[in-house]
């Protein structure tokens, strides 16, 4: 198989399968979760608080009082990584072209030097988070195989994407193929690892905000 054939497979069949498995996995995981149900709370709420779950979905993105000072590295690197990843994913010219080809939708891209910088920032943030995971007593204590696996699977698309864009290390078609394959690995693993937090976080934060608000506490 030549690099070009690999690229063709990755772009076509491979991507199709990866997206299908990812979607099916998400549906399965959500069904597993939601089918467990939630008993109605019979205690009358302190105040009616419509939208409280959604408020917490957003407000939990900010560090609660006192927390930033205790764990600045987690917050800074965490923000930079997540924001960098989201910006690159949705606002780089190459990705927008892909979305256009897939769904017929397009929007303006960020200038490529900015996307480049964000990729580097996201990569460096991930490295910092790895060092922190290996050295912080709590993080090291909690970490297992999956924490390192998901770290690597998240780094690969960023790294290969950066290398492909700059025609570094390997020929462009091969590096691009590896980039797409690494994204496909990420997609397939997403529903079945802690990467699923990208979906479940909307539920967990919502449940938290809803429960606290019934007691009159903004969480």
């Amino acid at each position: 198989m030549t690099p070009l054939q690999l690229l063709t497979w990755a772009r076509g069949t491979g991507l199709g399968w990866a997206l299908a498995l990812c979607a099916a996995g998400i549906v399965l995981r959500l069904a597993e979760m939601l089918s467990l149900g939630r008993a109605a709370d019979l205690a009358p709420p302190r105040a009616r608080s419509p939208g409280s779950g959604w408020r917490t979905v957003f407000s939990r993105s900010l560090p609660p009082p006192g927390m930033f000072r205790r764990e600045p590295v987690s917050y800074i690197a965490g923000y930079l990584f997540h924001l960098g990843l989201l910006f690159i994913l949705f606002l780089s010219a190459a990705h927008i072209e892909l979305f256009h080809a897939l769904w017929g939708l397009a929007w303006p891209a960020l200038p490529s030097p900015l996307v480049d910088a964000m990729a580097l920032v996201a990569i460096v943030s991930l490295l910092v988070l790895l060092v922190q995971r290996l050295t912080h007593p709590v993080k090291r204590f909690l970490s297992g195989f999956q924490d390192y696996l998901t770290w690597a699977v998240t780094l690969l698309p960023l790294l290969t994407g950066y290398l492909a864009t700059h025609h570094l290390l390997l020929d462009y078609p091969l590096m691009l193929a590896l980039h797409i394959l690494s994204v496909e690995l990420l997609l397939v693993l997403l529903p079945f690892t802690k990467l699923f937090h990208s979906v479940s976080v909307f539920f967990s934060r919502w449940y938290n905000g809803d429960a606290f608000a019934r007691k009159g506490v903004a969480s």
Partner: protein
Amino acid sequence: MSASLRRGINAFKEVIDAPIASFFSSCVHCGLCAEACLFYTETGDPKYTPIHKLEPLRRVWEQEYTVTGKLKRLLGLSRAVSDEELAEWGPLVYDSCTLCGRCAMVCPVGNDLTTMIRKMREGMSAAGHAPEGLVTATARAIQTGSPAGVKWVTLQAQIRHMQAEFDIEVPVNREGADYLVLMSSWEILNYPEYLGAVGRIFKQAGATWTLADDAYEATNSGIQIGASDLARELVGRIVTAAERLKVKCVVSPECGHAYTAIRWEGPNLMGRPFTFEVKHILEVLDELRRDGRLKLRGTLDVPLTYHDPCQLSRRGGVVEQPRTLLHELAPNFKEMSDAGTMNWCCGGGGGVSANERAHELQLTAFLRKKAQIEELGVKTVVTACANCRVVMEEALEHYHMDVEMLGLTELVAEHLAEDGQS
């Protein structure tokens, strides 16, 4: 598998619902919950990380309710939860968690870890891994009505004493009263002045109230140990009395978890909404004040602060009421750092103070509160939970700190305007 372990695992399976599944699904092992937990911050031991305390429950969730977990189990990649493991987790789930809820406020993915631990205790107690102190207290509560074994005759003696001292009437079993007043064993034994305070306040406010001789105890060990059937039995006694006496409102005393037990868990334990309201005494005081039925006079001028009982503020939403009262009564009232819904626990909530095995750890956890009080430099701390008060009085003594604890209801009662004054 032993019968008790099977009971425990079944209880784990029963408590896992969609929120719990979403919480376990969302955890990314960031460890930030540890930074919110005083058992970690004061010891530096990572085993006290809140999410780690839930590991056996997480595995049951994964193995029972996810396809990947079932696969992992088949391939030998994950072990079943064992009795030895639960025994090892006992101290993590009971000794090093006061159900204070701080971790649930900071988790970036929104995990309500406190509710998870409350639920995990259901399986721990079913499997026979609850600490002895709590088992004994719960058994005593079921048998005698009080976890400390306080009987009605003891309370009767306090009633006579309070009636004589404060010239009040303490009605018992009065039908149709506005308020059914509950006590905690701590108050009956250590702070009977609470009863006198309530009597004086209601007398001034012209409110009708009563005690019930078959339901005077508000605390609920069933909640702390994690035995919903026993918790239901204890709440049920109060519900029966409140409905028999046709009261409008049941008043939870100055006790944090008693409030949680009756106000928030109560209707869910009974499986139906109540026909009466449930309020914490501070809510009642604040309402009387707003209605102009509580007239205060004079102030306590020493610098003082307020310790938020976790179950009252963070887990109960009673945050503003004590502050409104204190601003009126204490011109030198200062807030502690992290006051309100981000307060730090006294170290003895959630059954920890009833668990002798946890005593030393509880004193270590108190170092956080100690630092907060010292930072402020006050010599008087007001609170509204008899358990916080007992725990803190003991710890203050232990650390040779010259700080006095006061109950807010008593403070209010001491500043009631006489008739015609204001």
